[in-house]
């Protein structure tokens, strides 16, 4: 396996030929390589090619480099609260020191069947083993084909904050970054194979928060994560851990339309409470 260290986005994209994979902090990618879920003959280390750090372009927009670590984000006062809290509640201090925002947005599902390489729908197969089997950590929305639960706390926070993503070739909203898997396209991230996330613009909110229910106090993925951000009178709420992708909730009543599995009904109850609390907190 080769390791290349391009210094510009352009060189990085050029290096991302077939069989090459972008490597940032490696916290998700390295285990996937070791377990041979991702196969690569070259790793393109993007640390020097992707912006890192936080700047304010105006009073209302914070620009964040995709190479910024979660640890850096959680302590930066320029970063809106919901995103800071989402970072602080993620993973462990060690992982946050290595893991980057770009890598976090592209991290793979934690579905145990997928990670154990069951030939399931998301891997290109026919069935969802989780739906028929053990699925207490799985989805309550968008789970018709694949019931995986999106693991990123940051993505939900960014969705609620209405962030936009700049890649080496375009700009798009965080909502456009993700899509439910379909028969034709199983990947939930709507980027091209060699497309790099460079920066995110995160609009300021008048108030924002991130609440998270997990199986232990620290170092656990969200059972349900709820981000709320208020700008003026309008509040946007987004959820982590409830659908194969970060989930925008139009209103608290939308939870009535959840389609929980037998083992995930409790997540609807959890989401109701956390949404109510998040709305109260953002006033």
């Amino acid at each position, binding site marked *: 396996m080769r390791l290349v260290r391009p210094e510009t986005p352009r060189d990085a994209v050029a290096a991302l030929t077939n069989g090459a994979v972008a490597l940032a902090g490696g916290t998700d990618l390295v285990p996937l390589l070791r377990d041979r879920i991702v196969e690569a003959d070259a790793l393109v280390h993007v640390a020097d090619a992707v912006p890192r750090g936080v700047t304010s372009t105006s009073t209302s927009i914070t620009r964040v480099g995709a190479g910024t670590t979660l640890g850096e984000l959680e302590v930066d006062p320029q970063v809106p609260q919901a995103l800071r809290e989402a970072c602080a509640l993620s993973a462990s201090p060690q992982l946050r020191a290595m893991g980057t925002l770009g890598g976090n947005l592209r991290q793979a599902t934690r579905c145990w069947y997928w990670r154990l390489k069951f030939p399931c729908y998301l891997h290109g197969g026919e069935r969802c083993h989780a739906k028929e089997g053990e699925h*207490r950590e799985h989805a309550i929305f968008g789970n018709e084909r694949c019931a995986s639960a999106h693991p990123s706390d940051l993505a939900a926070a960014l969705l609620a904050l209405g962030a936009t993503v700049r890649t080496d070739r375009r700009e798009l909203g965080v909502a456009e970054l993700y899509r439910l898997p379909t028969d034709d396209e199983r990947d939930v991230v709507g980027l091209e194979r060699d497309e790099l996330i460079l920066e995110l613009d995160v609009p300021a909110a008048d108030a924002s928060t991130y609440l998270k229910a997990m199986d232990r106090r620290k170092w*656990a993925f969200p059972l349900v994560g709820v981000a709320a951000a208020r700008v003026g009178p309008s509040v946007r709420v987004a959820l982590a851990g409830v659908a194969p992708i970060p989930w925008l909730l139009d209103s608290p009543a939308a939870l009535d339309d959840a389609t929980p599995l037998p*083992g995930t009904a*409790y997540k609807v109850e959890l989401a109701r409470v956390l949404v109510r609390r998040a709305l109260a907190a953002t006033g």
Partner: protein
Amino acid sequence: MARLIRTEKEVEGRYTEQWVVVEEDALDQWPAGPLETVGRDTPRVDGYERARGEAIYTADVQFPGMLHTAVLRSPHARARVKRIDFERALAAPGVRAALGPASGESSGGDAEASGAGAYTPDSSASAPYSSHVLTDEPSFAGAAVAALAADTFAQAADAVRLIDVEWEVLEPLLDADEAVARESLLEEPRRYERGDLERGLGEADVVVEAEYRTQTLLHNALETHQSVCRWEGDTLEVYISTQYIWGVRSGVAKALELPQDKVRVVCNFMGGGFGAKNNAGDYTFIAAELARRTGRPVRCALTRREENMASGNRNATIQRLVAGARADGTLTALGGEFVNAVGWDGFSASTSGPMQLLYACDNVRTVDYGAQLNTSPNAAFRAPGFVEGTFGLECLLDELAAKLDLDPLELRKRNYSDSDLVDGRPFSSKRLLECYRRAEPHWARREEVRARSEAPWRRGVGLASQVWYGGGGPPSYAWVRVGSDGRATVITAMQDIGTGTRTAMAQIAAEELGLPLDRVEVALGDSARGPFASISAGSSTTPSMGPAVRAAAADAARQIVEIAAQRYHLEQRVLSLRGGHVVSADGGSWPLEEVTGLLGSGQILGKGARGPNPAGMRVLTFGIQVAEVAVDVETGEVRVERVAAIHDVGRIINPLGARSQVEGGIIQGIGHTLSEQRLLDPLSGSVLTQTLDAYKLPTIADVPELVTEFVDEPDTHLTNLGAKGLGEPPIIPTAAAIANAIRDATGADVRSLPVTREEMLRALREARERETVAARTS
């Protein structure tokens, strides 16, 4: 004099009758309370070595030319190997030898030459490889089927994927209740009865009945199961992470048909075992066989995934329990049907044990079923059976207390039992009432704790009691060598599995020899360099080894006094050893090295043996824990805020080490209660929680305030030390204490572990519904 006796030997509640040779224990116990070294906080004698990374664990053992192994484990819970083909694997870079599930010979070099690549179970002519721990009919996911040795672990792991297997996948049996119904049992149901349960229930004013469930738990010791095998001439050296050097020695000798002394077992430092490392394990036999075939040292180390698939577990249980009591709280009946979901192999632990032992109840009936399933074999896990059984029993008692409208601590006091009602023997010592007394201030906090409830958090306090074995026993031996420099070395082939026994043994020898601790070494961990020593399981290391070490030190001390008496023309009875000196009653004092210096390079050698257990008595350990919790009644989040633990294990050798055992036990217990569970795919039987992100051990953020107290009174009937074991007691009551605190806080009955969000929310919903019904009817 050596005495041959037939005695009952107990390990973790399993009794076997066996012959042992014991030597009388001639020493009087030391007075109670802190002495010079014993009974005082003592940091680990090997702490710096461990912290600096100098301690050599099995995972650190390296030999020139050492090969690494990867094991092909069955991905199916029940299957048959129709065909297995090693050709591609053997051709892979670095691969030196392979082993498969049948008899035959091969190594990397000549495998291709002999054309022995492909192999079908029924055509043993072409079967190239074999080991008795490999199977072509795996009966659980993770069973070892084949193994490869290569120059590096990466090469072995790569090549193992190239072993081509054609499986015939069969339907697995995964449900414990179904297994009992189909009589798929590992042993006859174990029935126990005293008195008459029906009569007892008839006499009861109040009866409670409930079903409790506990989950399958994984040990996840920091160091995975592993060994390195090396042949030195006709001797096999086994470097292994083990709780029982001598058990590995005899197990390997027997399986490989070697004389026992041709097997040397070494374990100097160990990264934990919790009960799952009492035997040699498949990895040792694989390494030994591959080492024999290649003439190289071979390491076989389980990966974390293998560890969680196939290295043992605390099996799940289903407990259907009933209790009856008179209005004053006197128990009239206790009954239980305990289904242990053991796995394909292993043992049906005594889940009914606490129900039989803890309370003075005349009418008790229990039955334990050991269900055989297509899941990986269980292994002892820190108080196997009693952790599970105490959860059921102690929750049931609180449900009973609620119905009786009686204080839960009072209920336990009223049913205190003076003697062992299972076999009518008196206890060698039992200070459980003292534990209860000391629990009172912690228990009395509950009004104040409840009052701190603030929506959505509700706070409460719960307690649970504990009984367990932990008396140890013979045979166990130690030597103590004192050199002319006045330093002592304790020599015994025991193992310190991480609990700090090395330190405790040094303290005991130092105390007896009147030496400062830094003049005592402990040489352990090598079957070729010391006498037979006890298994480190069943809370037995300190009570088994400690008395032997003290006896050996006393033997050395006696010799030193004899020499000093002759040298200084004094009577032996006026001499003793203190502060590194030989001192006489009239104030004379000579540095120890002045006396032992007479020997030149010669040494004094003391010998000691563990004496017999007190005849006709039952040796048990006791304790109580009081837990305080906060429950978010909207999200089902449970936070344990404080646990107070009071245990009675006789004399405490090292209070610092003892507290750390209790703290570790409680923290592990919190994981068992709130977050840990092995999940299986219900269709295929595959283990889904193979890595530590999925199998959720508690983190330091989950650790509450911990308060630890010991009764710390020597058991006057037990050995020259009066000390019992403490490895297991502290994990036993934790789950029940937490569950009872949850009930106190919320009124919700959690009867199934772990108390995840879904279980907590379910229990809260049930409690609300109960209240609504009650409100409507009243």
